[in-house]
């Protein structure tokens, strides 16, 4: 029930943000379509942790701010590699251990690694990932460990 309400509120918020209409007739159409969507989702048994992640804490925003800074730093590093006269690349597939034990945690950590230029998650298992790194500097194991800890805090234990 909580998830149905959460999905309905989220959908209506999105409807308002995207339409920008505040006329009563159009508003009621919006409400009706949101309710219909929630009912259909309920009937398809789609309302679970994955589709309506109400458990995600607000610290996700702080995590994104931190991640944004990391992304900026590593894109400058990759830009330097690209612009160097003799591109100093040393491609490697490395194993990165992970301590995540929720699906959301795995998603957040693996996607964060891919999002930072210089590293891409290639394959995931329960306890470690294969990461493709462009340079030696990109395989910073301490950096991965600290990202892992932060993602675990957001993704839940």
């Amino acid at each position, binding site marked *: 029930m909580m998830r149905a309400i959460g999905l309905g509120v989220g959908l209506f918020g*999105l409807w308002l*943000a*995207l339409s*920008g209409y505040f006329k009563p007739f159009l508003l009621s159409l919006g409400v009706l379509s949101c309710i219909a969507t929630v009912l259909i989702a309920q009937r398809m048994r789609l309302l679970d942790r994955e589709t309506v992640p109400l458990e995600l804490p607000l610290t996700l925003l702080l995590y*994104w701010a931190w991640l*944004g800074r990391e*992304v*900026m730093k590593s*894109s400058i590093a*990759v*830009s330097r590699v*690209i*612009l160097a006269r003799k*591109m100093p*690349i*040393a*491609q*490697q*597939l*490395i*194993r990165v251990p992970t301590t995540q034990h929720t699906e959301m945690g795995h998603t957040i950590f*693996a*996607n*964060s690694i*891919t*999002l*930072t*230029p*210089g590293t*891409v*998650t*290639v*394959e995931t*298992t329960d306890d*470690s*990932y*294969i990461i*493709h790194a*462009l340079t*030696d500097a990109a395989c910073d194991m301490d950096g991965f460990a600290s990202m892992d800890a932060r993602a675990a805090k957001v993704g839940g234990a």
Partner: protein
Amino acid sequence: MHELLGMAADIISIFLFIIGGGFMLIGAIGIIRLPDFWSRLHAAGIIDTVGAELILTGMMFQAGFTQVTVKLILIGLFLFVTSPTSTHALANAAFTAGIMPLGMKRNESDKVLKPAPVRDGVKT
């Protein structure tokens, strides 16, 4: 006062457009210069993370506190979530297909993947 704020917003957004455009240009150069599929993924990563997000932020400063900014924030969020997904899909497909990085320095992928189970003497 209002004009001053508008000018400040203009300056900030011009600054963001230049930086974002610069990163996009570098990414494009990287796609041409880098030697193989795997390294080009990283150049594409620069374009769709820093490049796109900085330009979207610049547009937000142009739009001010309007509905357009809300839509731009949503576009930024969706891009933030979907672009690593597509990059991962590409990388995973290449790995499954057996394409290996050019001049690979270190390969630890065997340590992660367990060998395929042998059943009745036949590898599955």
